[in-house]
């Protein structure tokens, strides 16, 4: 399945470079104080001018798209490779598709994805049950390690949880009776 806004990077206009490379003779003093030593990116970035040849860089072959791949709207299309883990599906998938309509600069994008994650964890439990798997929360949460290394804390937390749950049940039952 192809993604929306699919546009190969080769179709980028290159307008930024065209403007940047125009002669600047009309600007008094252009470049007079340029100092190549003033490079706060050193030594992280090995400056070799590749930034300025970025339009036509050598691109690897494109990975075949055999599943839905969402992509940031801050780029023209998908990258040459991508992960194939867990394509979007279900309600969480719909929320993710909505979130990806917004740029990475927006709260809607990130909060939408967080919401989708929470919905997805509920979907995961439903999916497990559908496939006959009862999630083993004790094992999944690593509570056997907690029992081994922090038994007193484990018992204290379990008792607190039990107490709070019992209190809530008692309160709800009383309210219902009234």
């Amino acid at each position: 399945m192809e993604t929306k806004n699919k546009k190969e990077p080769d179709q980028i206009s290159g307008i930024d470079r065209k403007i940047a490379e125009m002669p600047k003779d009309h600007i008094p003093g252009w470049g007079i104080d340029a100092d190549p030593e003033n490079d706060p990116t050193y030594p992280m970035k090995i400056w070799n001018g590749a930034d300025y040849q970025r339009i036509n860089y050598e691109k690897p072959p494109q990975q075949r798209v055999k599943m839905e791949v969402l992509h940031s709207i801050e780029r023209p299309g998908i990258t040459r490779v991508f992960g194939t883990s867990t394509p979007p599906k279900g309600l969480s998938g719909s929320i993710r598709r909505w979130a990806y309509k917004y740029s990475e600069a927006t709260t809607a994008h990130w909060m939408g994805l967080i919401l989708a994650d929470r919905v997805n964890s509920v979907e995961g439990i439903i999916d497990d049950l559908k496939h006959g798997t009862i999630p083993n929360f004790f094992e999944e949460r690593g509570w056997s390690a907690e029992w081994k290394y922090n038994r007193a804390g484990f018992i204290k937390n379990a008792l607190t949880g039990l107490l709070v749950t019992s209190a809530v049940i008692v309160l709800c039952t009383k309210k219902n009776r009234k």
Partner: protein
Amino acid sequence: MNYRGPFRIRADRDKPVPQIEHPYDAIVRVTRSLICGSDLHLYHGMVPDTRVGMTFGHEFTGVVEEVGSGVQKLKVGDRVLVPFNIACGTCPFCKQELYGNCHESNPEATAVGGFFGYAHIAGGYDGGQAEYVRVPFADVSPTVIPEGMDIEDAVLLTDVVPTGYQAAEMGGIRKGDTVVVFGAGPVGIMAARCAWLFGAGRVIVIDHLDYRLEFVKNYAYCEAYNFKEMDDPVVFLKKQTDWFGADVCIDAVGCDASGSALQTITGKKLLLQAGSATALHWAVNSVKKGGIVSVIGVYGPPFNMVPMGSIMNKGITLRTNQASVKRLLPKLIDHVMSGRLNPKGIITHRLPLEEISDAYHIFSAKRDNCIKPLLIPPRANLA
């Protein structure tokens, strides 16, 4: 492993073995895998677009089992360490050795390159806490483990050592500088150790876990202080530096920081910001005017409350990036092989991959004096 939601992880024996998806792919059988502090951000449900069913893990070594038609350097049977960055090697960023910022490995976000096993904001790749992994661009970053190198040293060269080293490197440390590292987790420990390689005059580590402070004091030859024993860590550090501030501060904590109720509630409980930025806040306030703050701790993508006014008014240089592992590997392999660095010294727990849920809990809850847990898959020792 199979992520099922915040704080829930399952050892899953039914996940299919990954396939070659691209001519430059390799399939690697994992021999060792580590849990990273940044995996805990995923585990805690703090990183957006972490989907149920994903496999985490971006620190692993393995044996090449299969290569795609376009792979020329790696061969089946090669024992490799696989840097956490997925890098194409030809985009303008990779060409300038910014391998953590590759433009061709992550469709989902432009803010970061592709990483193994790190949510869909890092490309949606399954990771190395597994028996087999698909490794894209196999000829670019994966590196054959040098003869004589311990596999436990090799696996730490995939992230922790380069990340700690780059944290110190970004500090622009000059001989004699006082360097403060916030966080005594694996990366903070390594940053403190590496600060000496750049000629630091004094290295101070701040954390709140005594066992980690004791560990870093011995491992990294530094001073170590517990911020819970101070009224205000910033005032403490100012006093320690003749009231001027440290020359360099390193935030090696990121979004899971303790120490400020406001940051914890808004960042970790309500998720109104991308985690708690307490360490960064302290780093900005503890550094001298005109000093350098190096940020290697991981933050989520939305935004954080940081004292921008102080950054500007103090003339602070803020330097930060994901580690560019491939760029640093030749130097770091030399440091390890010559004995200057002893990465495997930070591994405290060795567990079978099948016990991954326990491993995550031990690391996350800081049980049993855990510094760094190593996972060993069942097929790790096949010939």
